[in-house]
């Protein structure tokens, strides 16, 4: 139990100290005023404006980031943020076009295939960013006579339109 230290300012009133002591009898209350500085208590002076920012910029490029665990990566991922995928709006990018079929990748395991809309048809090119509404993340279903589901290896989304460039 380290000794209780109260640095008393000349303006401190005896009754103030008594109330402080009553409020927290175990934890020491430290009152430090700028006039009364105990040399043994504080060792470093706070650096001035330029010196402080110089120090900050010295270590700007060094990142002490600990490698994130898989559990934390997953917890904070966009996939978990999505929640129930049905009806959610996502941004996708067209990576392949065959005639009027647009193959769109939106960061999920599978891509989705959407027909080219009538509006702004010529603007849907490879690399274009589009808005999608997810219907199903994976088109898979159990069919009669099979033990496991059959998957189409595709997601099902509705194309809402191009992303508006602002």
């Amino acid at each position, binding site marked *: 139990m380290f000794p209780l230290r109260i640095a008393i300012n000349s303006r401190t009133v005896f009754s103030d100290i008594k109330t402080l002591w009553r409020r927290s009898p175990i934890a020491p209350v430290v009152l430090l005023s700028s006039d009364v500085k105990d040399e043994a208590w504080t060792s470093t002076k706070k650096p001035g404006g330029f010196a402080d920012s110089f120090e900050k910029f010295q270590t700007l490029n060094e990142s002490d980031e600990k490698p994130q*665990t*898989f559990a934390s990566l*997953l917890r904070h*991922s966009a996939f978990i943020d999505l929640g129930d995928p049905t009806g959610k709006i996502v941004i996708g990018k067209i990576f392949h076009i065959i005639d009027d079929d647009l193959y769109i990748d939106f960061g999920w395991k599978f891509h989705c295939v959407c027909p080219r809309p009538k509006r702004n048809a010529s603007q849907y090119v490879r690399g274009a960013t589009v808005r999608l509404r997810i219907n199903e993340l994976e088109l898979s279903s159990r069919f009669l006579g099979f033990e*496991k*589901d059959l*998957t189409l*290896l595709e997601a099902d989304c509705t194309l809402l339109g191009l992303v508006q460039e602002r």
Partner: protein
Amino acid sequence: MFSLKLNRFVSLCPIKNIKLFSVEAPQAAQVDPVSALPISKQEEVLRHPDYFNVHNLFTVQDLFEARVHYGHKEGSLDERMLPYIYGSRLGHLIFDLDKTATYLRLALNIVAHVAYRDGIILFFLRGAQNAHLVEQTAKECGEFAHTRFWRGGIFTNANKQFGAVTRLPDLCIFMNTLNNILTTHTAVRDAAKMTIITIGVVDTNCNPSLITYPVPGNDDSPASIELYCKLFKSAILRGKEKRREHLQQQ
């Protein structure tokens, strides 16, 4: 009697002027006839837990960004894949990337060692979307790829099918183990029959039991396949470089 005379002859003449009848062979480093590498070096490489430093080829974050943790839906799950799965999010299965990282490092270590010992590596992938990428990868690291229809007896009936004595691959790497949703690639079973090491990326709907070094992870996204190709290529090139280095040192 002749030996007594020889002893007297030896004692009379100084040792350094004697030429013995049997000449000892010079102390050359013994070379393994199969891999053509010096045996002492080879044993040093084999004893090391990670001689080619494959553990720092990737991080769990790289796997995460390449979408390796995404699995299929619960309805198409193969029960044998349960140990590798972290959980399921609203019906969609998620791989435990910590486990995947361990298995992938084991596999990369094996790949590097096989490349170091001048083994033949054969890449497999069935699926038109990524087939070209795998063929390119194999070409770039000087190994082989088979991404087309697999005839029945290529491994099991090789001598008859190719008409001459054939050397089979020493390692088969499957980027995906399924031909289509319903059937596993025949080469998985055939490689096991011919005692060829197999490394395979197994998704939640695959059977990992016949594969020597399974790597549980996503095999459907092009991003994941690109990552696997990049990692296997680096491991092979590292193994080959060390081999060149050790052969030159000899």
